[in-house]
């Protein structure tokens, strides 16, 4: 291993060179862009496609982009969707079957479509969630998922340290942010006139060397530290990093009914959650029946079908579905992965139509059940 480079300075004008070098190295570059009034990850070639001077404003059930007049490209804190879809695709073919003239069925693997992708913009909460997805999809015990594994192998991650927190952020309390510590190839902090850039892997170091930059000076490093400190100002927090026993002991808490009276069981929270891993499988035959594909699609524990088996729906109402989601995320994960499944990104709060705030619900659930008058 070569000696790690000191943090370098990437002038704003040279950011295009970073994009070009990634392309030159054979990566498809994916970065943040404004589409339909939201910041999404999409293929990017030119810095002019980046969200210039755009801030995101979040509140429970609310998301709004505003122009702040700055020259920054990363003044936003969280995209509606993290980097999960780059690895765990929302919909993909697991295998194909054909039926020949004799009626014999044949099975085939799909072609490997794992592109070499470089993603720019991942935040600390996304990286922590990525680590959990890695554990789930790559663990030996579970049999590594070949589709996830191939994409993961080809993914180059350029993380961005947050320089502001939005109203729904709470990664400080889960211990996952706002600063990126590991799980990236390159990490950058945006300054007024450029970026402090550092590597987190051999590949990342090679790329930085290709850019032929100079060491960041004291002033630049202190500007980075100051800007990073802004992101620690967070409005929300989880009551504790381990609520396993508390939640499993609160299964009959009256608050579940209260939540169920507001929850639409729409599944938005699970769709934006960077750690949720459920998927359903179904067969999709062609009209003539000669070929059929076995597809997997993201699923949600808020659907009726999730707990369905031969005529019985185990979780037939919203109360049981919300309880399943929350007890899995904040209790079951401790047994499965040695930590909670929440990395504090706050997306489930922002994208919940009635604005249910899990941090608030957890706080209520962690208090002893209040005696009801009618009890």
């Amino acid at each position, binding site marked *: 291993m070569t000696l790690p480079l000191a943090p370098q300075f990437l002038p704003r004008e040279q950011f295009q060179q970073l994009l070009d070098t990634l392309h030159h190295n054979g990566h498809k570059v994916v970065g943040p862009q404004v589409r339909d009034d939201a910041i999404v990850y999409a293929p990017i070639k030119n810095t002019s496609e980046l969200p210039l001077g755009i801030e995101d404003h979040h509140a429970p059930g609310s998301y709004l982009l505003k122009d702040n007049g700055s020259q920054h490209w990363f003044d936003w804190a969280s995209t509606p969707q993290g980097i999960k879809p780059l690895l765990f695709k929302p919909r993909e073919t697991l295998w194909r079957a054909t039926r020949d003239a004799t009626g014999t069925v044949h099975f085939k693997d799909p072609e490997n479509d794992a592109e070499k992708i470089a993603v720019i913009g991942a935040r600390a909460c996304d990286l922590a969630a990525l680590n959990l997805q890695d554990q789930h999809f790559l663990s030996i015990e579970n049999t590594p998922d070949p589709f996830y594994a191939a994409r993961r192998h080809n993914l180059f991650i350029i993380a961005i340290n947050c320089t502001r927190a939005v109203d729904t952020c709470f990664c400080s309390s889960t211990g996952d942010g706002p600063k990126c510590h590991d799980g990236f190839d390159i990490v950058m902090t945006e300054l007024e006139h450029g970026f402090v850039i550092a590597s987190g892997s051999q590949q990342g170091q090679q790329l930085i060397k290709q850019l032929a930059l100079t060491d960041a000076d004291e002033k630049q490093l202190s500007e980075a530290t100051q800007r990073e400190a802004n992101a620690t100002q967070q409005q929300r927090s989880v009551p504790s990093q381990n609520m396993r026993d508390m939640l499993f002991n609160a299964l009959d808490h009256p608050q579940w009914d209260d939540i169920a009276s507001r929850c639409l069981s729409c599944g938005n929270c699970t769709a934006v959650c960077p750690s949720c891993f459920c*998927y359903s499988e179904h067969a999709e035959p062609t009209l003539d029946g000669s070929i059929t594909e076995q597809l997997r699609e993201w699923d949600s524990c808020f659907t009726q079908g999730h707990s369905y088996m031969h005529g019985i729906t185990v979780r037939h109402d919203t109360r049981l579905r919300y309880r399943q989601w929350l007890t899995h995320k904040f209790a079951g994960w401790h*047994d499965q992965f040695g930590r909670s499944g929440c990395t504090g990104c706050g997306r489930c709060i922002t994208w919940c139509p009635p604005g249910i705030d899990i941090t608030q619900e957890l706080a209520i659930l962690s208090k002893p059940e209040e005696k009801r008058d009618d009890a």
Partner: protein
Amino acid sequence: MMHNPHRPHQARVVERVQESGSVFTLRLEFLDSEMRDNYRFAPGQFNMVYLYGVGEVAISIVSDPKDPKLLDHTIRAVGRVTNGISQLKDGDIIGLRGPYGRGWPMLEAEGRDVVVITGGLGCAPVVSVINYITQRREQFGKLTILQGVKLPKDLIWRDRFERWINEPNTEVFLAADKGDPDWPWHVGLVIELFDQMKLSEDTIVMMCGPEGMMRVCIHELLLRDIPEDAIYLSMERNMQCALGQCGHCQFGADFVCKDGPVFSYDQIKPLFAHKGF
């Protein structure tokens, strides 16, 4: 591409046997000789059976593990996939992958008295246990079989039960919620027969059936001083991937497809009393 654990393998329907009105058994063998030779399973484990263009279902293997080349799957036609599978004929080619999950504690049961409790429309997972024990009778103590059904016609394999009654050191208790002139056994619930059982201190219990029934039986067994870790039950949940990945079969932190389907009661006790997991 690295090994794709999702993809089924070709299997042939060697024989299809109609067991009762809606219950049938498929005897399957892998087409690929290497698959066939390397395949091993334990009682209580299951396979994913795939019907072309329709989908997969988790079905437990009921045949004896000493012959892993021919795999019997007893299936009730209840849903989209199983209704389609019920139309298969001898010689048809389908998809098969497995075995999955943890089966019954047959090694732990050796030398002990075994109580097998089932409910509902004939419970294939525990029939594999009964078959296993009757084939190796000297390795186990007393075998007690309790089976409850709603109606006498729901009892599949009546001839087998009648045969088991005559096995050495074996007792069989049958109960139907409603009797009929052809039903010589108890009319009522299975638990009403518990007092007729003589339970030794060294008893291991294996059960399968509706969760409500299992809850009541566990309560009765605990009252009779059977320890929690000597009671095993086979759980059922929605299974799609069978690899501990898709998330549907989670029961608390356990994935029923890989941590189960057979659990000892003390493993799942904290959540078993709560509906919705």
